[in-house]
């Protein structure tokens, strides 16, 4: 007697929406169990999370602040995941974006006006992330190196590079020995809505990027080829699709978007390059969940990005109000991702109860 999974013949629209919603609920229930083990009322704790992220004006603005990088990175990841290229390195692509724009901002910032230097920094950010993202693509297509390993390892390299820069050659003269670079000049820093940490530029850029990526994936020849590669590599070869070019391109776009997020964090929030885990609250990793929860559709990524940002903000809040350790949010995210993946499996497969060992064939 055992279980057997059988691929479903078809899935309905309703099920496609219901499955992630149900897995999310199940995931939250499991998170509730964790609270229960800590002796907290799970409903109260979960309520606290969402109250602090969505229940007040301040909470909401913080949620939006964190949603913007998640949407940028998540949209790009949706593209690579469509090609079944498992880019786990968005975190490092984000860092490289920040590094490139720091250099541009510090080098040319003092001598250029705001409307010139800000676009230049975003361009540099895109370029930094794109170049860093193209490395694993080239390694995979030319040398057959697994992208999960290479993107993951490049995260460490990028993090060490940033650390090296901020304690070494780029260490700020004005920072009294702290591991920061000097602050960017005033014209290279983004204007924020008063009382918030939201920049109007990013508020427009993130949804625009998501919309562009949606168009790219579902309406262009490039997006078509990406999806064919992801769904059937053999057929892609048969159809004459150039793997090398296409992979470089989608990793450039995905890495570039992560790089833009890095520029955004730098110019809107931090104003200088600092330690990697200060610069990014793990956005490159959380965005993996954002992309999956958004069903690899950048338009839905906008929704899932806001949702996950809410969990980050709420998680930070309950750390203080309920005295939970700092890793709580990561536990949440991990649990929720596992449930989403399981939900996807049950959406695609039916589970059957088998009484005897079946015949082969």
């Amino acid at each position, binding site marked *: 007697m055992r279980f057997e999974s059988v691929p479903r013949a078809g899935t309905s629209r309703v099920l496609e929406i219901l499955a992630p919603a149900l897995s999310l609920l199940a995931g939250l229930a499991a998170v509730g169990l964790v609270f229960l083990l800590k002796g907290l009322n799970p409903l109260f704790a979960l309520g606290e999370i969402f109250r602090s992220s969505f229940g007040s004006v301040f909470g909401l603005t913080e949620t939006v602040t964190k949603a913007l990088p998640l949407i940028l990175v998540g949209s790009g990841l949706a593209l690579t995941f469509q090609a079944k290229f498992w880019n786990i390195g968005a975190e490092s692509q984000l860092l490289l974006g920040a590094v490139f724009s720091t250099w541009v901002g510090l080098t040319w910032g003092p001598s250029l006006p705001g409307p010139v230097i800000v676009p230049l920094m975003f361009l540099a950010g895109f370029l930094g992330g794109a170049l860093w993202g193209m490395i694993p693509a080239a390694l995979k297509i030319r040398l057959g190196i697994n992208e999960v390993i290479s993107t993951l390892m490049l995260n460490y390299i990028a993090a060490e590079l940033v650390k090296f820069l901020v304690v070494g050659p780029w260490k700020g003269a004005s920072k009294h020995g702290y591991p920061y670079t000097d602050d960017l000049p005033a014209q290279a820093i983004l204007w924020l809505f008063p009382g918030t940490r939201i920049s109007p530029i990013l508020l427009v850029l993130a949804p625009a990027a998501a919309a562009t990526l949606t168009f790219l994936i579902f309406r*262009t*020849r490039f*997006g*078509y080829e990406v999806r*064919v590669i992801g769904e059937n590599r053999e*057929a892609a*070869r048969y*159809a004459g*699709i150039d793997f090398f070019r296409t992979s470089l391109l989608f990793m450039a776009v995905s890495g570039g978007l992560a790089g833009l997020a890095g520029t955004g964090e730098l110019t809107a929030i931090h104003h200088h390059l600092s330690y990697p885990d200060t610069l990014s609250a793990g956005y490159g990793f959380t965005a993996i969940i954002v992309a999956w929860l958004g069903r690899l559709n950048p338009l839905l990524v906008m929704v899932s990005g806001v949702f996950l940002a809410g969990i980050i903000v709420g998680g930070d809040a309950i750390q203080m109000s309920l005295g939970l350790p700092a890793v709580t949010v990561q536990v949440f995210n991990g649990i929720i991702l596992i449930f989403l993946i399981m939900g996807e499996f049950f959406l695609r497969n039916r589970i059957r109860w088998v009484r005897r060992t079946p*015949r082969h064939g």
Partner: protein
Amino acid sequence: MARIRTLEMRDIVKDFSGLRANDGVSLKIEAGEILGLLGENGAGKTTLMNILFGLYRPDGGTILINGEEVVFRSPRDAMQRGIGMIHQHFMLVQKHTVLENVALGFEKAPFFFPLRQVRRRLAEFSYRFGLAVRPDEPVWKLSAGEQQRVEILKALIRSSDLLIMDEPTSVLTPKETAELFDILKRMSGEGHSIILISHKLDEITRICSRVQVLRKGKVAGEAPMGEVSAEDLARMMVGRRVADSYPKADLPPGRVVLEILDLEAQNDQGAPAVRGVSFEVRENEIFGIAGVSGNGQQELVECVTGLRRASAGAVRLLGREITGLSPRQIHNRGISHVPEERIKFGIVPNLLLYENAVLKRHHRQPYSIRNIMNYPAIRRHAGDLVKSFQVATPSIYSPMKHLSGGNIQKLILGREISADPVLMIAAHPTYGLDVGASEYIRGQIIARRDRGGAVLLVSEDLEELFMICDRVAVMFEGRIMGIVDPRSGSFEEVGMMMAGAVEAAGGEATDAV
């Protein structure tokens, strides 16, 4: 446990989702015999042997050892009764040594220091049967012949009385083949019985004491080796011609479309697969390539479509060299391709029907204009294909994977024909399809020819090739054995060439150059 004196399979039936692979097959072998099991691909040889080895359970029929009925639930059961099988692809752990591979899963090995005892037995068997192996060499360093000897030793040490060998010579050099045959003779001299699966006539006649031929899941004949000629065997293997040709317009072949000159190519393992092939295909012509699959047909097609690089020779389309161009460039020059393994290569199962309707042409107008997909035009095209090629589907918005095999093939064929190609290549286009779908597809291929198209048709189905082709070339071990006119040629002739027994007499083979 008693040794195997006789083994009998009676009325074995095995169905695979509606397809009958074995239909009442009986087989008998005695100690010391070498039985040749002959037949085309898909005749049911491997299925029958997998049943004997306990990999499949039959849907009907019985197996008897020394007259006593046995039931094998798994290969383990079969091995315990003294049956060993050596698959075409070796089941060895590449990084382990020969000795470790032999010891792996060997039940009688002691728990502590198993290798010491296994080493002793390995040496003993190796000497007794003349199977030279180097026990401490890792398997990945060994040649195919040596790896095969390790497999044989594995089976012998597990005291297999009956050894099943699936196409054992397909990976061997002629010298290694001769060595293998010496070993097999020695084994039969010691009372082991051997079943040799093959489609090569000369091997069967060289070594077997008896031969049994399967065709389309049934026994087509069975005889001691001395009593049958190679011609008899070829006839049993390919059967008799039953169906008539399809009606075709009476058109003389036009100008040369495809020209292949001394083409050579290697397979994925780096062994020569296409060895100096030359032929040409003209307008108004369906040029067939017959042969048991695995004789270089796939590599040949891949060279023409740009999926594989030729190591020598030339491919020309309408007089222009296309050797070494990319698949997309070749497609743009006007070669369309109905691939073998249609689901693996020809479609993207999870994308929708209309998205699949332009695969490979998606980069051209009107389906994409300046890198933007023109989905309205694509959907119109998909609707047209569904209608004119009778694809049964709820809508063009269905995921491709929900279509049946026949309808998938109709869509692929329609897609490739509607590209209005200069040359259409179709590999096994009706393989696994029902009669209705097969007839429809053959009709469409002929219609293409009658409108002036050139078609290169690769098939294992002789019946099909004779029904629709204007000329049929036979491939064996990477070479063209001859080119036959289906109106005058016979099945026997082609069957002999397919089994490598003869080359065509006279000028047909040479005038193709």
